[in-house]
């Protein structure tokens, strides 16, 4: 992104020594705590303005928890999260509300993340309604149509329901909803894992376009190093709640340092090069 050696702009997100514990509950009726699971074990990283940072790891490594912590859907047990220079680690719901316009999540499962009882127009328009964007319902409707078009969907389909769309299209709806408020940060939690490979490429291309047009910063969470290779400027590899390696993409793929990174790279099947 920025040339090395020049002063870097301050990072959009700064995470320091972040820890998240979840209580383990025993029993069904009378539950009591029987210890904790440490999902995130003291991680630190920056997400620089305008970059795409990849966060890669296998299931249970804590990457999804990290995504939810950064967007403050969860409260950290310890450590700090700073957004645009401001400490947001312990803000309450009220104070977080304006922040929600700035950071949005895109989810993995296009089948589960859209409310099946709402039309896609309503889904995309809901954030506008909640944050009272636009001077009225009419203006909001126009914005919804604009958004649908922006992500490659037919605006005329705004009153159709999610089940009438394919997985890739639903993922586009999720993205439209995420950019509706004009956020600066998008946290994409495995946005293409549930899609066919040719559709994956479509969504990746869409994200790339939107990033360039809207000046987005993206935290891209994935379990597959091949998928993030092109999209990410820097990549962090997570394992068991810790970041084991963080490097810019060229370096990471060319000369991985940590054995786990190497194991992940080896796991990607080798294909003969097409002529």
């Amino acid at each position, binding site marked *: 992104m920025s040339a090395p050696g020049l002063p870097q702009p301050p990072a959009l997100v700064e995470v320091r020594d972040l820890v998240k514990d979840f209580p383990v509950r025993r029993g069904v009726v009378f539950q009591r705590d029987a210890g904790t699971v440490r999902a995130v074990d003291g991680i630190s990283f920056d997400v620089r303005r305008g970059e795409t940072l990849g966060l890669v790891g*296998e299931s249970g490594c804590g990457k999804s928890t990290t995504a939810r912590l950064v967007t403050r859907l969860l409260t950290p047990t310890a450590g700090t999260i700073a957004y645009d220079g401001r400490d947001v680690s312990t803000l309450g719901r009220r104070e977080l509300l304006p922040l929600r316009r700035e950071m949005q999540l895109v989810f993995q499962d296009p089948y589960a993340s859209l409310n099946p009882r709402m039309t896609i127009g309503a889904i995309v328009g809901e954030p506008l309604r909640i944050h009272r964007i636009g001077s009225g319902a009419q203006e909001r409707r126009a914005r919804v149509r604009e958004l649908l078009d922006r992500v490659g969907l037919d605006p005329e389909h705004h009153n159709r329901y999610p089940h009438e769309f394919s997985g890739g299209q639903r993922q586009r709806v999720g993205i439209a909803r995420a950019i509706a408020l004009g956020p600066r940060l998008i946290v994409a939690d495995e946005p293409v894992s549930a899609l066919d490979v040719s559709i994956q490429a479509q969504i990746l*291309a869409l994200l790339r376009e939107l990033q360039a047009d809207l000046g987005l910063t993206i935290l891209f969470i994935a379990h597959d*190093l*091949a998928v993030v290779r*092109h999209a990410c400027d820097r990549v962090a590899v997570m394992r068991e709640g810790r970041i084991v390696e963080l490097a810019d993409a060229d370096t990471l793929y060319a000369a991985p340092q940590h054995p786990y990174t190497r194991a992940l790279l080896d796991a990607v*099947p*080798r294909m*003969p090069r*097409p002529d």
Partner: protein
Amino acid sequence: MSEPLLDVRDLRVSFATPDGLVRAVDGVSFSVAPGRTLGIVGESGSGKSVAVSTVMGLTRGARGATIAGELRFAGHDLIHAGDEELRRLRGNELAMVFQDPMSSLHPLFRVGDQLVEAVRAHRPVGRRAARIRAQDMLGLAGVPEPGRRMEAYPHELSGGLRQRVMIAMALVNEPRLLIADEPTTALDVTVQAQILELLARLRDELGMAMVLVTHDLGVVAQVADDVAVMYAGRIVETGPTRPLLRTPQHPYTWGLLRSTPRLDGPRDAWPVPIAGRPPSPIAPPAGCRFHPRCPSALAPCAAIDPVLQPAGDGTQRAACILPAAVREEERP
């Protein structure tokens, strides 16, 4: 060439639904010789899962299902065979492994019991002998401490272990053909590699033939001898693995390759999407089914429905009317 173990000719499977007739498999032919591995590659809606489920006889009795064509396995006519004949083959000479081992294993029975059941369904042995066999198979499938694991319930095992159990269960009666439907898709990346290795090893040790169904070209690159690419219920290209991946003859295969993220090549060469979406199985496009999305499509493509023709180096076949030269133009 020796008699193929599995010979599928012009298989057609359709389902009557309230929205119309869904032609899930619309004229598919392939064969597998003993000891060989065929990879069937396709995205969602290509019909690949329905095709192999039909080989196993699992689509019989599905509501509104119509099955036509020829299906021969080891001398049995699977289309016209009685239910009992099919049942005796299933889990015995013809076995299948499914995608999601968490939901594919019965949650309320111990793993060992499920394996023993698989043995005793086809072999007249007592419980003890069956248990020994089951435990041996678990060990062969790379499950550590198999004796202890036999007592476990599926939810007590990790994803990789569960898939090993499924594989052990499928192979316990030493089938001649194993069908694996997306066996690694639900697993972590590092585990995927292990499972593929396991399948390849067992295939060699048991001298089995294998059909591997997947959407991931990387998977077939690793394990398959031959590949068939499916799109919209048809096979659009076949050939040995290496030539197919190096010089694909059908624009769809080529599109799939280009949209697969790779670890080699320049980082700024992003995966190239295939425009559009797969067609509806109820109303496929006229002419070539891929033509609306094909970057090389010409006028005749909308009118002519191509059949598989020899292409490339002669071992390959593709269902495309365009001469190789035109298809070549699309390559960067």
